[in-house]
């Protein structure tokens, strides 16, 4: 292949890099697909007549089909896929060895993508379980769990035959996150016939809905932050003890967070408290991780202005921190009574997932891709454009939704929850829906710049030379 022909580049390509590439390229496809779907939904909420011209559109382009496909393509399609890519690269790198089985990796990658594309088609065709974030039908759920188990087995064996005795912090987070993903996914997708309906069912499903973010995306993303940060700033991580506190507290408290979605609902008071208190205690792991990031960055903040990848990473950490201030506050009974069921939730859900961990994932792709394709990123300008469009777009999106949510919550409380009062509130919020579509369009433009940049990098990026520092540091 062309890589071998590159002058001065070692002929030995790290094992497993094809698996990583498949995961990365497909994840970018899912990212674009998910954002188009989200954009269509947001445009439809600005103008309900949009894309309703004929029978086909009326059947397949309805909110009930587009929105679940948007969320699933973002969660399972984009973020999970890209994180698998990061794990397949990062775990062997930290173990100073190759991937245990490249063949198994490839099988996992292909099965995963076939499974998810099948799942997305079935969502669009209307075959859904009707549970938020867990709409995929059982068949595809089983496919997801099989792929997670195969990935875990492959990476576990890689770890077992590692050439480095001590496991670095990221390794705890990464391997732990895969176990979490399997458990959370299985619990969240148990068919309703087996567990009974009503608030019991919601107890199961909110465990899934919150923890697919809390125990999978957060844990794997924090692992990635711990991996990339010292590499990018060339500094030691500030404190081993803080990383220990962060890891064990995240595992101890996050799993409790499901019931805070049912606060003020038909569940016992002790269960509400069991959901609310750990939500507040989450500040412990989050602030410990951030303290470690800040401690590591101390004195070298100027590097953020020099490396765009680092800018993505730090912004991701910042939005993660902000999302985890918003979250505990929302979990309290008073704020929850106002903010639940409003647009606020939409803004909040996008903050950790897009602003936080998608940013970390972008940073990881920009860091890892040159190390597996031996080509540098094609354009720094496009990278910068990607950064600013994503951040500005998200801020417009987020603040529009938060403001709209607060207005909605208080107006409903004032008795405008039905009748002509409800319509008045809805009309007055139109401007915020337009702002959301504008912010979303900017975010989408940013991702086009990203996808084009990655495509050009893989095709025509500057080839690394033998003395390039990226060959030394994986």
């Amino acid at each position, binding site marked *: 292949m062309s890589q071998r022909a590159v002058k001065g580049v070692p002929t030995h390509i790290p094992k497993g890099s094809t698996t990583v590439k498949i995961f990365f390229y497909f994840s970018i496809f899912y990212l674009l697909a998910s954002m188009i779907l989200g954009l269509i939904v947001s445009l439809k909420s600005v103008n309900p007549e949009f894309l309703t011209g004929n029978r086909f559109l009326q059947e397949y382009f309805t909110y009930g089909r587009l929105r679940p496909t948007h969320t699933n393509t973002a969660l399972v399609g984009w973020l999970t896929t890209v994180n698998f890519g990061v794990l397949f690269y990062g775990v062997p790198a930290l173990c100073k060895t190759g991937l245990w089985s490249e063949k198994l990796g490839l099988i996992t990658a292909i099965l995963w993508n076939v499974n998810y594309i099948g799942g997305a088609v079935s969502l669009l065709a209307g075959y859904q379980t009707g549970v938020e974030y867990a709409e995929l039908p059982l068949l595809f759920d089983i496919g997801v769990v099989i792929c997670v188990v195969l990935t875990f087995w492959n990476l576990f064996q890689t770890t077992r035959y590692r050439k480095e*005795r001590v496991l670095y912090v990221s390794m705890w987070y990464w391997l732990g996150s895969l176990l979490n993903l399997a458990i959370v996914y299985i619990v969240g997708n148990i068919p309703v016939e087996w567990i009974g309906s009503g608030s019991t069912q919601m107890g199961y499903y909110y465990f899934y809905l919150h923890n697919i973010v809390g125990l999978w995306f957060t844990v794997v993303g924090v692992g990635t932050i711990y*991996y990339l940060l010292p590499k990018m700033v060339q500094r030691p991580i500030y*404190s081993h003890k803080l990383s220990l506190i962060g890891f064990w507290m995240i595992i101890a408290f996050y799993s409790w967070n499901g019931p805070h979605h049912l606060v003020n609902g038909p569940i016992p008071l002790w269960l509400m408290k069991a959901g609310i208190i750990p939500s507040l205690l989450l500040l412990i792991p989050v602030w410990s991780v951030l*303290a470690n990031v800040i401690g590591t960055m101390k*004195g070298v903040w100027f590097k953020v202005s020099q490396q765009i990848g680092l800018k993505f990473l730090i912004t991701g950490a910042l939005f993660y921190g902000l999302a985890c201030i918003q979250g505990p506050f929302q979990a309290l009974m008073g704020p929850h*009574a106002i903010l639940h069921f409003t647009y606020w939730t939409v803004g909040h859900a996008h903050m950790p997932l897009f602003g936080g961990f998608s940013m970390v994932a972008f940073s990881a792709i920009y860091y890892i891709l040159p190390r597996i394709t031996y080509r540098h990123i094609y354009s720094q300008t496009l990278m910068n454009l990607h950064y600013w469009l994503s951040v500005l777009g998200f801020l417009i999106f987020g603040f529009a939704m938060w403001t709209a949510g607060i207005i909605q919550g208080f107006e409903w409380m004032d008795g405008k929850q039905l009748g002509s009062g409800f319509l008045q509130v809805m009309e007055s919020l139109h401007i915020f829906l337009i702002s959301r579509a504008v912010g979303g369009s900017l975010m989408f433009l940013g991702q086009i710049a990203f996808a084009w940049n990655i495509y050009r990098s893989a095709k025509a990026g500057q080839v690394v030379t033998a003395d390039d520092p990226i060959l030394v540091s994986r």
Partner: protein
Amino acid sequence: MADPRDPKDPNHPQPPVTPAPTDLSQQFMVEEEIEEHRDKGVYTDSSDIQVGHGKVPKFLKFVYAALAFWGLYYALAASPINDRHEASPTAAPTAEAGADVFSASCAGCHNVTAERKIGPGLLGVHERLGDQGLDDVLHKGRPDKGMPAPPSLNLNESQIQSLKLYLTSLKK
């Protein structure tokens, strides 16, 4: 004539270079930030990444303790909020609040004049039905004529009382 803004022009003023790292960046941690550790060194090395033995900041220790106390207090003392209305203090019933409730929940079927809409016009309704009669309709609706009971429209007692004050004010 060279364009003064041309970045390829060798005479073009170069943008200022990022300021040199501060002294702090040369030194990873100051003495008081480092914890005593068994391995005697400042860092351990794993997978070519160094990990320091920095202390847990005092501020964070305070946060940990405060959250632990708050958690205990909340577990013992918190009581539930039953619905949105109780999350904010409810104001005493007023005719102004009643007018809002009317336009939100009643104006679809009723005029405030004597003119009929879907239901009868409500001018002088208090004199027509009497105090008790109005109260009955505001709580039970008129199931026989298709008017829903206001409580089933999610109106609470305070809103219904406001509504009653407002309707009473509609005199001929």
